[in-house]
């Protein structure tokens, strides 16, 4: 087979990428209280313990609220950015788009600390709203990238046909463009949701006393007794991410198929 060595290498590489994640379910169902081999026996007590834990449920509630709000806000902002950049020419387009994409490469510690300092000096109470503020910012570039692909594959003549048939700008957008980019929008929503759900640094600095799932996990890592439960929680989180991403990928591909463009693959 062509490239046999490379294929073997790529498969080893994938194993390396997945190795830590595979350990999660193994130890989440292991009845031993320490995370080590040999395995003891099968149990679901860590999952039960997790669902009975009140602060875990509070963290889950917070995380879901934050993720839903951030993904909606980021996707709305992303629609504006993607539509503007694919359809119009305007002054300073490069720098403006660069600024919008900047959170992608800026270290999160810088984003969160600077935002924290400003919020504190303004006397703003830290709560889940401030986390939403930060998460919307870091999700915005991802939403913009996904939506730009969706808007890019639009055929301009469809829009013009709508105008010729007497539609206004807004109704043409609603009736023609929006349905065509809908898979992109759904994909962007799911992606932003996943990013927000997993994000730690911003939540750590901006949440005040409100726990989110990642900050709750971080606070529990000091207690060896809690580790098996954290493995169970991690299993659930990772599973949720994978399901959401698979759905997002499905919609992304459907969007590409819908507009008849060629699939270039991948999220970025």
């Amino acid at each position, binding site marked *: 087979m*062509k*490239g046999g060595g*490379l294929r073997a290498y*790529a498969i080893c*590489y*994938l194993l*390396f990428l997945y190795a*830590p*994640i595979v*350990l999660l379910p193994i130890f989440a169902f292991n009845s031993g209280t*320490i*995370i*080590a*081999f*040999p395995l003891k026996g099968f149990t679901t007590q860590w999952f039960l313990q997790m669902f009975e834990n009140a602060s875990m449920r509070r963290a889950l509630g917070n995380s879901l609220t934050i993720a839903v709000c951030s993904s909606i806000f980021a996707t*709305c*902002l*992303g629609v*504006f950015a993607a539509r503007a*950049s694919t*359809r*119009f*020419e*305007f002054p300073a*387009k490069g720098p*403006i788009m660069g*600024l*919008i994409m900047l*959170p992608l*490469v800026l*270290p*999160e*510690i*810088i*984003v969160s*600390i*600077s*935002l*924290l*300092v400003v919020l504190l*000096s303004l006397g703003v109470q830290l709560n889940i709203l401030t986390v939403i*503020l930060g998460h919307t*910012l870091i999700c915005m570039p991802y939403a913009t990238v996904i939506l730009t692909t969706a808007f890019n594959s639009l055929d301009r003549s469809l829009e013009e046909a709508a105008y010729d048939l007497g539609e206004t700008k807004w109704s043409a957008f609603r009736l023609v463009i929006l349905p065509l980019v809908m898979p992109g929008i759904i994909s962007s929503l799911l*992606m932003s949701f996943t990013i927000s*759900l*997993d994000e*730690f*640094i911003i939540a750590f600095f901006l949440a005040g006393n409100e726990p989110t799932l*990642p900050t709750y*996990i971080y606070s529990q*890592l000091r207690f060896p007794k809690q580790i098996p439960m954290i493995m169970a929680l*991690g299993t659930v*989180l*990772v599973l949720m991410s*994978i399901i959401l*991403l698979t759905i997002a990928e499905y919609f992304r*591909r459907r969007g590409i198929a819908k507009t008849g463009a060629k699939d270039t693959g*991948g*999220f*970025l």
Partner: protein
Amino acid sequence: MASGNRSQSAQGLTLIAPPLGYALLVMAAPLLTILAYSFLKDGYLTVIREFTLDNYRAVWTDPIVRTVMLRSLGVAALVTLVTVVLAFPVAYFLSFVVSPSKKSMWLFLITIPFWTSYLIRVFLWKVILGYNGVVNSGLKTLGIIEQPLSFLLYNINSMVITLAHAYAPFAILPIFIALEKIDRSLLEAGRDLGESRAMTFWRVTLPLAMPGVVAASLIVFIPTIGDYVTPALIGGGKIPMIANLIQSQMLDLDNRPLGSALAVTAMLIVAVFSLIFVAMNRRFLKVRQ
């Protein structure tokens, strides 16, 4: 068409205003505040509005800051090197060997671990490498070692492994995109002109893939240098990187001007290194234009 262009720009600017406004308000304004703070004096628990360069003087002469900064740069450089070198063959495989219909599936498989919780992945490495962790207990069960290996956790190596694992997909994608753009007929031309496979790779494929390699390096280097979680968990808090230092100045010690000066300095150093790196590879980046 002058009026058409004007209305085009007006419409474009109106549309871009909300995301731009958001980025300015939530990102640019706080960054400028940090910049301003870095030139102000620290009073106890307050900031005195008086211009000074003392913060920068303190940051640039402090041996601890220097050690931590050099460590951050060293770790980030090592992680970048490891990640990019390990990722290149995978990107090459994806671009040149995998059949087009299977490419999306491979890319999807590679990106999934990247989207799963970063914190959990870092924590898992701690579990794997720990004193009573998976590696040690596994090796002991198999009878290969009698005493746990102590060199696995709480050192630079374990930080590099963790970070290289965390940023792996980041490196593959840009290289893959650059390789995809290469005109395959150039490679055939190389072969037809009597170059060996290896020489064609060295003289045609690699230079053309360099923009992707440069992008991958920067995309790994910049977030790695500002990483907070890995030094805290894998380094055991005893080998801090620059992010941990900024955090402790800003919050634990509540010296915002000094913390700000530290953050600005870190960003400057990252920017300078990135620019030098891009300048070094200018020759390759020009090829495409």
